[in-house]
């Protein structure tokens, strides 16, 4: 029961290394352009804001970068399945060549993957700063801010079971259940929650920030064109988590001014009874009957 290695027969073994390398190069050369120019434009999340543009570019870049790796494995598997098969016609167990390793290949593999990883991390980090956080929640002290962060429109997003409301501190702290924001102006979202953890996901704007009670989570966006976008809750928050959604609108600056003016007037009565604007709220009760 110890089959011996296959004796090298008279036939010349094909040059597997070279063949495989060629196949891989060809497959990669086909796939990368397809990803960039054919698939790429359709990769979400579109181009409604600066964030989604950055996210789209990164997703295309990562998909394109994944192709050489994907092809390496797929082409290899296909090549191995085709070429490295045991003789099906014979019952005898034949061993392959006893190659136990190859230090050079191992070192090359490690170095190449390390270079890739460092490159990816550097790319990701630079992108994160250049794109001022690309719409992700950055906590209360955002690291990367847009150039004119002081002039940004502040909107507070308040999550509660199960509804989003929005406060505009620049307009008397008016609170509404609909989200509208002007096109072409930096917006600074302050996301917080009144009860459990929610996550504010403005899908077409490429904004996502967890709403944590007692915490202020800042995310930036600059909308590039008008239209409507969806807001969904992205962190499981109880019974109506799946229904905790609303539709927001990006409008022109003038339209925004008239909308916010009308809203402030409409809700003047209730704005008077709202708590003063604050980055976090701790409304009672913590528990009833304690």
């Amino acid at each position, binding site marked *: 029961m110890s089959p011996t290695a296959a004796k090298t027969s008279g036939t010349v073994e094909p040059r597997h290394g070279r063949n495989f390398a060629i196949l891989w190069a060809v497959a990669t050369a086909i796939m990368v352009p397809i990803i960039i120019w054919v698939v790429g434009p359709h990769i979400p999340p579109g181009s409604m804001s600066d964030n989604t543009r950055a996210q789209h570019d990164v997703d295309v870049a990562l998909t394109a970068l994944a192709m050489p790796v994907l092809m390496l494995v797929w082409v290899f598997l296909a090549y191995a399945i085709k070429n490295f098969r045991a003789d099906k016609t014979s019952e005898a*167990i034949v061993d392959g060549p006893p190659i136990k390793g190859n230090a050079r290949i191992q070192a090359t593999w490690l170095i190449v993957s390390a270079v890739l990883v460092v490159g990816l991390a550097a790319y990701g980090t630079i992108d994160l700063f250049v794109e001022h956080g690309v719409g992700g*929640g950055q906590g209360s002290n955002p690291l990367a801010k847009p150039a004119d962060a002081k002039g940004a429109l502040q909107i507070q997003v308040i999550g509660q079971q199960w509804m989003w409301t929005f406060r505009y501190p620049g307009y008397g702290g008016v609170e509404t259940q609909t989200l509208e924001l002007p096109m072409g102006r930096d917006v600074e979202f302050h996301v917080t929650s009144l009860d459990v953890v929610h996550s504010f996901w403005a899908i077409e704007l490429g904004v996502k920030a967890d709403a944590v009670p007692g915490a202020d989570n800042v995310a930036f966006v600059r909308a590039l064109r008008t239209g409507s976008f969806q807001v969904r809750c992205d962190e499981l928050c109880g019974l109506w988590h799946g229904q905790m959604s609303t539709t927001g609108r990006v409008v022109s600056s003038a339209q925004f001014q008239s909308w916010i003016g009308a809203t402030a007037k409409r809700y003047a009565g209730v704005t008077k009874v709202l708590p003063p604007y604050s980055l976090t709220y701790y409304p009672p009760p913590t528990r009833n009957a304690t």
Partner: protein
Amino acid sequence: MESATVSVQPRRSNASAWGGLLKTNVIWAVVLAIVGYIVAHWLGGKIAGNIAAEQNPGGTDQADIAILLGLFGSIVGWMLGLGFFNYPLKRMLGRPPSLHEGGESGAWRYFRLCTDHKVVAMQYLVATLFFFFVAGLNAMFIRTELTSHNATLFPSGNYLTLVGLHGTMMLTMMSAGVIGPLGNWLVPIMIGARRMAFPRIESLTMWLTVLAGFVLLSATLLGGFPTGWTGYAPLADQARAGIDSYLVSFLLIGISLVLVGLNIIVTVVTLRAPGMSWNRLPIFVWGMVTTSILAVLAAPVLAAALFMVMCDRSIESTFFVSSSGGSPLLWDELFWFFGHPEVYILALPGFGIVLEILPVFARKPLWGYRLAVAGMFGVALMSFMVWQHHLFMSGINANLRPFYMFTTELISIPTGVIFLNGFGTLWKAKIRFTVPMLFCTAFFFNFLIGGLSGVFLSDVTSDVVTHGSFFVMAHFHYTIMGGLVFALMGGIYYWLPKMTGFNLNQTLGKIHFWTMFVFFNLTFFPLFAAGMLGMPRRVSTYNADLHTLNVFVSIMAFCLGLSMIIFIVNLVWSMVFKRERAAENPWHSKSLEWQIPTPVPSYNFEEIPTITGDPYGYGLPEGPVVDFGRRRPAVAAGKAGA
């Protein structure tokens, strides 16, 4: 280890089949668990009444002290019924330590505390597969609900309970799914030992896992739980009593993971046969060791976090209540500090199985053995340094994000090493595509997609889109189901003939493989798109324009479910009806476990063997890999299977 052979013939226990009924066994365990619940619940009601009469005015659903105590009471009853308290009590009375329990023969040993590691492994296999299919059934329900973009089929709360049960049960049972059955069965045999280091603890982990599964199911009787498997506080503080089942169940799994990991590490360190140097240790054993390191160190953090939620719910502490000086972020940090190693607890065993099986069917030595071991250790150690990538959007200190992005991408280096090992082994090989080999090949196909999608999630920019969406869900199904479950299936097809002594049907196996492979990919690949298009996880309502996609996915998921039924049919047909005797070494492997008789005698080795060669010495003109001493164990010496 010195040892001398005494008599080979085991004395049969003369206890009749009915006699076993009266001894400690699982029937008593169930009865006493229920009694334990009732008694402790009553007691808890009294205590709670004294502590805070105001808080629990006869409420049926809010008496968390009583319910938690009841669940702990059922644990005590369960262990009492199985006889786990007998030995500790004897030790308290000063009786000397021993390694084995009495009465470990006959069919009853499968239904009680048994110190034979092969019996425990079979118990584990049945239990984890049972819960795997229960959880799979939940997945079918979830997919049924998602055929409509409005919540139509299940009431909203019930849907969340289904999602939570599916996630928690899959995660917990699959954590134990390889290390339990295959780890317990193979590790001692592969290293040339007769037993695990702590046989009673081994059995305890198995029975705690079973109890954990049933406790989790009991959530349905207590109002369900709305949190999914991540149990985010303070939603967990707020939820109805069903969440207590989740907490206790996960705690049991945590304890079980610590103990099973501890047991395996100790076994490998101390019980290796002479000649089984660290350099010769089979790669599967290395996979188990690295998994065990994660289990021992990560699960206690989970236990602590669960303990805090229990405190919040019962004595109303405020660990996660931000209006009273706590913070939900504390749960996020602690849970994911456990949670990320946990997902590697679900990956490393797969690496081990695949790299163990590949050389056998490639007829080549494992390529780059040391690098593979280093890769596994790299994954294990680095998995403790990446957890905050689950919290990129959570509003914790944003300055840390570049660091965690870097470490997360760094972990792909040791993971990539596993691919290199696999491919080096396949290079110029003489591959035989048996059923186990098919599953191993598919492992590389699936796990690659899982890994590459992980790069998207590690990049903060891309994570803003994909975090918490179906993209994540597709990603981890590719790594856990496409990776671990495929490897586990390969392992079952590979080792089950040895474990039970009966062959599995290869034709059905191939049908199972191809249906599972095709429908798995058709189910989960479209979900990447669903996530990127804005479908959050765990919702029963989604945008109408994703409807067609979801209907397609659901149909494919049902087909995937059918392929699992093929697997069950194969198991039942081959093990119960056909019962075709398995050969001793049907795959012509050189590893130690295939050199001993089938079925394996209860003492494994008559004499502790001396290891004389590499388990992967294919193509090498080496002698036998093991020296069994004076006698190779007689084939018909014991009856381990059945």
